[in-house]
């Protein structure tokens, strides 16, 4: 951790991947692939935000879609009602983030003192409530039919939008990385490991959990904004449980508590969704590709609680002969919840 950051080997790898991603659309002139990659990056942002909750703080929220949905609707509505310029686009992102921040603060304050079961259930219910409101409030949301809108002209070029999303993802990644490595992030990890002990050390754990949920909510809103623009369309599906489930699958399969893991999860799930549904024309079973992930997910929870990234990372550390202790790769270990 104390090594000059830019020189470490894993950062070098990340940098190379970053360069490759920039070069990608210019090398591979495929509209479909660019769109797929954009989708992967957007869901990568969402999954990283979920990792802050699940991976770093150890809380399971079933209501993450509500923040994603808020971002999506903010951007869609503002681009539709005002001019569709970059300025409005950026403004709508900020507005979405602010609303999401306030909502996650309020929801967190109300719910985060509950035990994990109840928290999961209540977040599911609140998010379900928001979905119902959105479906009934047709004047604004157009309900399940949704509405299309015009994106800023520069985004007509898919590559430009892709690069913007890529840049945002990098910014989010670096910001979150700093966040989890900050003293505050350390407290979150301590909460995950043993909330009771952290409390008895004098930390107001509720305060830290609320902060984590605000950070996660704000970033999820950003992902929602980008998602809406990528489709130039929005409907109430952005608020459904499916979105939360996607984030959950990506985080678990990719690896909780790593930030890189959720990105890997997004690559795996989004591309599988893309290619497996393609296969479905010949083999109908692939229509139900989600089953495979459901099963992988269950196996991961039982046998590989660290996910792809976590498992690879700890293998790598073992291989490096225990020179570096894993500080930020800790699984959802079996006997962690002594706090309840």
């Amino acid at each position: 951790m104390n090594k000059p950051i830019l020189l470490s080997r894993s950062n070098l790898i990340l940098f190379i991947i970053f360069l490759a991603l920039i070069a990608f659309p210019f090398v591979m002139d495929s509209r479909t692939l660019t769109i797929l990659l954009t989708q992967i990056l957007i869901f990568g942002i969402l999954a990283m935000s979920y990792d802050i909750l699940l991976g770093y703080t150890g809380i399971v929220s079933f209501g993450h879609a509500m923040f994603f949905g808020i971002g999506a609707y903010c951007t869609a509505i503002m681009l539709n009602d005002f001019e569709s310029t970059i300025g409005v686009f950026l403004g709508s992102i900020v507005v979405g983030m602010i609303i999401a921040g306030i909502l996650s603060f309020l929801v967190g304050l109300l719910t985060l003192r509950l035990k994990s079961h109840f928290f999961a259930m209540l977040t599911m219910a609140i998010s379900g409530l928001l979905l119902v409101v959105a479906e009934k409030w047709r004047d604004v949301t157009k309900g399940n039919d949704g509405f299309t809108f015009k994106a800023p002209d520069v985004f007509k070029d898919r590559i430009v939008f892709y690069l913007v999303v890529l840049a945002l993802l990098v910014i989010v990644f670096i910001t979150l990385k700093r966040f989890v490595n900050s003293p505050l992030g350390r407290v979150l990890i301590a909460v995950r490991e043993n909330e009771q002990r952290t409390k008895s050390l004098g930390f107001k754990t509720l305060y830290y959990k609320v902060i984590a949920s605000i950070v996660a909510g704000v970033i999820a809103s950003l992902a929602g904004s980008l998602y809406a623009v990528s489709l130039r369309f929005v409907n109430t599906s952005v608020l459904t449980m499916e979105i939360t489930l996607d984030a959950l699958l990506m985080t678990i399969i990719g690896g909780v508590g790593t930030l890189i893991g959720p990105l890997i999860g997004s690559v795996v799930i989004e591309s599988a969704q893309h290619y497996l549904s393609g296969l479905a024309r010949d083999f109908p079973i692939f229509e139900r590709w989600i089953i495979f992930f459901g099963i992988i997910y269950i196996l991961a929870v039982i046998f590989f609680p660290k996910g792809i990234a976590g498992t690879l990372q700890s293998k790598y550390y073992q291989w490096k002969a225990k020179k570096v202790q894993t500080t930020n790769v800790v699984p959802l270990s079996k006997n962690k919840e002594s706090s309840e």
Partner: protein
Amino acid sequence: MDLIISLVINGLATGMLIFLLAAGLTLIFGLMDVLNFAHGGLFVWGAYTGIFSYAYTGSFIVGIVVAILTGLVFGFIMEKLIITPVYGNHVQQILITLGFMLVLQEMIKVFFGPNVVAVKVPEYLAGSWQVGDIIIIKYRIFIIIFGFIVFGLFHYILTRTKVGLIVRAGVMNKDMVQALGINIKRIFLFVFMTGAALAAVAGVLMAPYSGSIYAELGMEYAILAFIVVVIGGMGSFQGSLFAAILVGLAGSFMAYYVPYLSLAVNMILMAVVLIFRPQGLFQAAKG
């Protein structure tokens, strides 16, 4: 007046279905400290296997029996494969049962197709009675009676039999039950399978009531059951009957008078209960 009576009957019938689903959920939670997010998957599997065998044999009774068997088998497999490995870890339980819910739901589409299946009420339960100006739909009465019989039966088991006594004791203090020489894991399995069977029965009974079934129904009803379990108090069997009827009636009256609020009302009710009285309205384990 007529309107009120039919709304009450409607609400009671829905309430009973939710009760069947919630009863297992609440006992499993109270005894095993497991909140089963896959409970709705058992419900929808009960509906499909029951309705398909009903269609195949022409006998609704066979359908109900098949649903019960499905519930028992799925309950057994689930307890052994899904619940036991993560016993005692809430976060993993929540994650894994939700994942299993997803799998169960998608498996429905694999085995029975992704389309909505229309279901008819069996002939001898179809139709309605006319009492004065009131039209009473027979099948709803059937559900209500069925629900009360199940309640009575389980109330008897819980309060009058040794195994019921052990279950109630286990809800209060698991360690002590074991220290008195009882293998609690066997009790867990028994309760889990019973709860699963109840959920499956709720599914097959609901199918003719709503007229059609589809895979996502499980999640929809499960949310109602969660609400009921929270309102009634986790682990309280009686509480879940009370809360289920409350939720059923609220749903039926709201759907008539303020339709756009009908779903919201129950969720708000649950949120309020969770925030101000997280142990529920009833104390657990009264039997």
